[in-house]
């Protein structure tokens, strides 16, 4: 079966979710490129967007329209060529509008999983719950008439485990997008030992068409991305527990969040990132990893407690941030959770005393956003971290400890055979987490 045959009938499971909707978008754009080619005019392309929630599906349609419109506005130069044969479409606006219609028409939202029975390709992007994944994939495998191939967006469950439990005989590969899929450049590709070579070739071609940066990860729970992120977050939690004894929980969360963002020049503080991903999602991932990699301490009572309290972060349907470790106003952190009071303490109360304790960051500090676009980024970072190494403030000390731990985690991933090389770890953090520099560096030595 050729690439185009494979792409003719695709199902995305969990299509209304954060990852699923992005996968639907990127796949629909790719399918449209194929469908609009006059050579393929007799084919019937379909993208079944399956989700249990009708509300999520209606949100998906709106999201798709907005995003396809933006994509079309950027691609109008090429789209004029695509629609050159349509005499009725003259102005850019007419062509863009038609393209949006054509892409959205490929997508068939449904709550019925039966839609996947006729698909040649099934992309799974449901909750990070191994049993649920196994159940749904098994149901599709049992009824699918097309010998479908399965791509799974799992960020932690070993692919060989899914393959064995569902009985797919190698018709599955890990194709892990980063959040949000339309923005983050990275795809982690994870082959099980059994994965069919032609499926691996297909996945590589598909990733290339989507213009993604591909990093292969070995089939170890958590892979490279969560392998690093989860351990990084657990370091933050441990630091909070340590500092909390002296300064209290609220101050400790604020300080570690600030260190991990400002001092380390990252796009978000670690607790903001955990909230963004979802504390419940992190807990799921930790659960999967801990079960498969016992004895490494991959769990956190604090994370469990937060979820039990019902404080889980993540986003509302409109994309705005829900409260978690931090409280958000207009998408920006505005408070820190105080478990004792079961309430948020405004940032304005916490920040001044904590900032004083941390001391000023290096004078050459620049926000992450300004750093990532600098043509002299490497030289800048070199100078900045040299300055950081020379400071003896609490802030500098915490930042160095954090940076060293991040490097240790990165090297550990290579040593444990998760990543093939240090460079792959750095690429994952640069293109999947949008970091300004990779964790395996000399800045904290």
């Amino acid at each position, binding site marked *: 079966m050729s690439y185009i045959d494979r792409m003719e009938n695709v199902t995305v499971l969990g299509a209304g979710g954060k990852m699923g909707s992005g996968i639907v978008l990127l796949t629909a754009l790719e399918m449209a490129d194929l469908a609009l080619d006059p050579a393929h005019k007799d084919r019937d392309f379909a993208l079944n967007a399956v989700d249990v929630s009708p509300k999520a599906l209606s949100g998906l349609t709106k999201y798709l329209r907005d995003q396809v419109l933006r994509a079309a*506005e*950027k691609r*109008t*130069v*090429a*789209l*004029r060529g695509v629609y050159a044969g349509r*005499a009725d479409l*003259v*102005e*850019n*606006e007419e062509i*863009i509008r038609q393209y949006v219609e054509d892409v959205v028409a490929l997508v068939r939202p449904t709550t019925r999983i039966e839609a996947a029975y006729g698909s040649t390709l099934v992309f799974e992007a449901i909750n990070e719950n191994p049993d649920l994944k196994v159940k749904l994939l098994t149901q599709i495998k049992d009824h699918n008439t097309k010998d479908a191939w399965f791509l799974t967006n799992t960020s932690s469950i070993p692919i060989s485990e899914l393959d064995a439990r569902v009985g797919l005989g190698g018709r599955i590969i890990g194709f892990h997008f980063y959040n949000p899929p339309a923005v983050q450049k990275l795809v982690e590709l994870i082959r099980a030992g059994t994965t069919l070579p032609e499926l691996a070739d297909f996945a590589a071609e598909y990733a290339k068409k989507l213009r993604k940066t591909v990093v292969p990860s070995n089939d170890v729970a958590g892979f490279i991305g969560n392998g690093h992120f989860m351990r990084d977050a657990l370091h933050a939690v441990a630091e909070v527990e340590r500092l909390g004894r002296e300064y209290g929980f609220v101050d400790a969360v604020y300080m570690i969040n600030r260190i991990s963002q400002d001092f380390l020049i990252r796009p978000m503080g670690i607790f903001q990132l955990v909230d963004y991903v979802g504390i419940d999602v992190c807990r799921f991932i930790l659960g999967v990893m801990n079960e498969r990699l016992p004895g490494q301490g991959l769990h956190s009572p604090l994370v469990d407690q937060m979820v039990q309290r019902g404080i889980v972060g993540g986003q509302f349907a409109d994309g705005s941030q829900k409260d978690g470790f931090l409280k958000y106003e207009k998408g920006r952190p505005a408070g820190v959770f105080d478990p004792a009071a079961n309430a948020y303490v405004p940032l304005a109360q916490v920040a001044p005393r904590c900032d004083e304790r941390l001391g000023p960051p290096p004078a050459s500090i620049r926000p992450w956003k300004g750093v990532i676009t600098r043509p002299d980024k490497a030289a800048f970072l070199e100078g900045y971290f040299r300055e950081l190494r020379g400071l003896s403030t609490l802030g500098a000390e915490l930042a160095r400890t954090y940076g060293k731990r991040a490097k240790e985690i990165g090297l550990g991933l290579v040593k444990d055979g998760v990543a093939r090389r240090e460079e792959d770890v750095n690429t994952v953090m640069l293109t999947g987490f949008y970091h300004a520099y990779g964790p395996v560096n000399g800045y904290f030595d």
Partner: protein
Amino acid sequence: MKKNRRKVYMAAGYHTTSLGTGRKEFHPKKPRPGLEEYIQEAGRGVLAQIGGGRCVDEGIIGNFMAARFNRQGHLAAFIPSIDPDLRWKPCTRVECACASGGVALTTAMKSVLAGTADVVLTVGVEVQNTVKAIYGADILGGAGWYRGDRKKGHAYFFPSLFSDRAGAYAEKHGRDKTRQAFARWFRNAVENARLSETAQECHNACEDLEALAMTEPNPRSFVDHLNVFDCSKVSDGAAAIAIMSEEGLERCGIPKSEAVEVVGWGQVEADLTVPPSDPTELETTRRAVQKALDAAGIGLDRIGTVECHDCFTISGILSVEAIGLAAKGEGPDYVLAGKTSRQGDVPFNTTGGLIGWGHPTGATGVRQAVTVWQQLTGKAGAAQIKISRKRPYALSVNMGGNDKTVVAIVYKKAGRKLRAKP
């Protein structure tokens, strides 16, 4: 061209800021002034210098595409909103694509020459940031031939027409030299714009402008032979000036030292349905400038400054040749030798021109006249250049579409006694 039967003057110019990307106060999602505010600001800026609307006989407004950018027609009826004393006076809106401002000037001049008015308030306006650039390209495409050319045209229709000219020029006269001249043109434009508070590029802080402008064109996202620095930006703005007879000057209490005299002008039209016979030449511009110079009875060696229509860097280079300052194929050398810079023989676009100051399309022709008036009467502030006795004249060239409508005007400071050419 017949000699003017009366003397025609311009004075009391005013222009707003050219608002758009590059200005610190510009944010695409924040509310901005609309057509009304721009027309009123520019119009009142003139009236404050000439004794109010009661001194005005007639109003002319130049605008290209408000009907699409702003869903607003009937702009002439905004002129009375500038001042209640303008009600019940004849007002007209004129349109000739990006030459709408220039044609507003000549329309006003004709009323003065015909003797039906002594003071004509002339406004140009365009508010283009209402749509994204990709849709703005559709609207501006209306300056070309829609039925004949739009369907087969590029997404960025006008940039592509001039990109084709740039490609043909580079092919004929050498790519490196041409590319470098484009970069120099951009640098001159921005450096001049930095001297004008109202310029769109006033806040441009790039240290190496020529290096930036040497960015390779990207045909995937834009056009083949131009990058974005080769293009004027999307701008909102207005300009206005009073066009007057001798009697008009007296009525408004404007001394001649505060006015410029129009000593010659040319307005030329080419056929919209016919492509340029030679893409490496601006033939219509050449003809309009020649007419203006003939009418003025002067040679190019008397021109001290030029406001040219550099909607793209290539139009700037081609204008230098069409005006006659450089031979065909030598425009880049002329520019690279520094002759169009503010220290050069003939400073071009002293507040940045279309690329540096901005290009609110329908306002541009009037804005050029305001800049010339400021320079010749010593009102250009930080952007002031020295006008020598040897070269006391100024020239403005306003082009519509792909060199289809062109208005060229030769000015001198009013009342200045000039020695006849030896």
